[in-house]
């Protein structure tokens, strides 16, 4: 596993996207940031990410829709996906885990270090 690990951060809140990317970089990822669901889908098709962190409430394509599309692609069948959502707009994490194998559902506001630890655990598993 010496190859470069790449992460896609899809979050329409630019500032939050930047700090997530920062944390992931600290964890050894190369990051790509997008603020739009449709754009995230394009990026995912064009590249090969080892991790996807996506907000649910995004313009054009929601996080769950993006997840559904990603799972439709063979190379994203097992990629860890972390979904972000706001408090009060909670998604059914059990159903998501079962249906789309979403690795984790984080409720905003969350702590980036928590995300970093979670990512560590998720990406360490296959190895």
């Amino acid at each position: 596993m010496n190859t470069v690990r790449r992460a896609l951060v899809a979050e329409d809140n630019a500032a939050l996207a930047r700090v997530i990317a920062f944390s992931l970089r600290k964890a050894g990822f190369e990051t790509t940031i997008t603020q739009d669901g449709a754009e995230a889908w394009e990026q995912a098709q064009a590249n090969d990410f080892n991790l996807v962190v996506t907000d649910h409430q995004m313009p054009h394509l929601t996080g769950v829709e993006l997840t559904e599309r990603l799972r439709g692609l063979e190379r994203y069948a097992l990629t860890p996906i972390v979904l972000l959502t706001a408090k009060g707009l909670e998604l059914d994490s059990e159903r998501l885990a079962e249906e789309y194998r979403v690795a984790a559902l984080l409720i905003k506001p969350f702590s980036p270090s928590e995300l970093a630890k979670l990512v560590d655990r998720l990406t360490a598993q296959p190895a």
Partner: protein
Amino acid sequence: MYAKSLPIGLPRRVVSLYLLFSLLAVSLLTAGSYFAAQSLLHNRTTGSGLAQLGRLAAALQLDRIQTGGEDAARLLQATIGGGNYAHAAVVDEAGIYLVHTDPDQVGTVSIEPEGAEILSWGSVGGLRYAGGAGQMLNEYRVPLTVSGLPTHTLRLAVAEPRLTDTLTQYGHYATLAILAPIACLALGVWALRKLTDPLSAIDRELSAIARLGHGMRPEPVGVPSAGLASIGWNRLVQHVHDLSESVPEADFESRLMAASQGDGRTRDALESLAEGVAMTDPEGRIEFANRAIAALLQSDQALEGEALLDLIGRIDPATEETFRQNRCENAVAELPVSVGDESRVLRVARGPLRSRGETPGFVWSVRDITQQKLAEASRDQFINTATHELRTPLANIKAYAETLVTCDFTDVEEQKEFCNTINAEATRLARFVDDLLSISSLEVGTLAIDRQRTDVKRLMDEAAQKVGTLMRSKSLRFEIALGEKLGDAHVDKDKILGMVVNLLGNAAKYTPEGGHVTFAVVRQEDAIKIEVRDTGVGIAPDEQARVFEKFFRSSNPAIREEVGTGLGLPLAREIAQLHRGELTLQSTLGEGSTFTVMLPLQ
């Protein structure tokens, strides 16, 4: 029927008891009188007998002294001549009759009668015994003294008068003696009956009411007036009658029925209700519907006979189920309907009409709750917007601060950038709170404006000043072009100020750094024209009409990036309209927007 089941009611018992005690009293009185009379007769006999005995003894003594006892027989004879005296005699020591009123007995030895009762009154004694002819004889005996020695005895027998004889003697009083008590008893019974008859009647009525089946209406009748109880009862009866006259037979539901069949006042009342009211048969076909129903359904033909739910429109299966079940209870549903080309929400409630017995119909009420639903939706939307606007900067601040605390920063510039972000997010949060405050101050009392003579130039200067800081912080070129002689206008100063500041604030918010904002105010012939022009992000054509809708927020990320309540433009337009003016918009996406307010001078 009643008398059979209750042979002796309370009042009858009273009469019976009265009779019983009266009879007892009469019996005791009779017995008492009998013994008293007998004792009285006996005493009278004894008293007169003893007195006569005394006089006779004295006469005999005198006779003996004067004549040597010649006149004894005559004296005795004379004595028993008056009264009930049976006989008189003088007996010597040997018990031989020396003198006797019955000449045959003279010289015979006296025989003491058997079973005699011995009487004694000091020196005077006597016997009481049954003489011939069943009569009681009282024989009094007194010793006659000769030379100081009692040698002879004087006997005087008195026939005790028989009670029957006395009664016979007083027979002419008997009629009175028997009839008077009987008459008194009868009078008592009559008086008691008079008193107890009303009670008896009340008793009967109460028993009859007590025996009524559930839900049956008691119909008490009055009783003959006598005494307080009957007066009270009659009042009660009168009251019940008055009540049943003032409240017609029926309860609300049947009055509703009556109304539907033409009882004027109630029908008028139902017709004038703003809420739709209808009555249907069990199948839901309308028997009566008020005007409000027709208006709600925008129907101008007669509704009678139509099925109410069908008239309302397409009903989802769940609602249909609700109305199919619960036939005995109230069923309520909120139904989205399209009336004409409007879509509305109706609240339909149905309750059973119980007064109809076996086949109940229904009473329906229909209310238009569209406005209420819209208000609820607005409120929810506002809360959503507000929480999103509050939460986003908070989430960012938390994420940045936490990262700053937990990560080792090698790059000081990076650290500084993090702090700047926190600062920016805090500013954004503060701005949103300011927005909220200004919006709430605008929204309070939006229904009314308070026009005052206002110096327009001074008002516009104040507005420009309020946004000066914001313009400078974004390095915007802020051009203020206030026309000459703006003069005075009759406007609501605070609301116009709020509106202009809001428009200028929007221009500043949505214009990228280094952009250009123009604020121009000119006085036209009959209006004041306020124009706010920016070189900002612009508004897409399909969103231009919607920006005036409450809580609308553009999907443009450049706009979403900024805080907003979704209320500023709708309120600005409302203020312009309250001044009989208008707020219009021209915009090109990516080039900029121009908001124009026309305020008529009068």
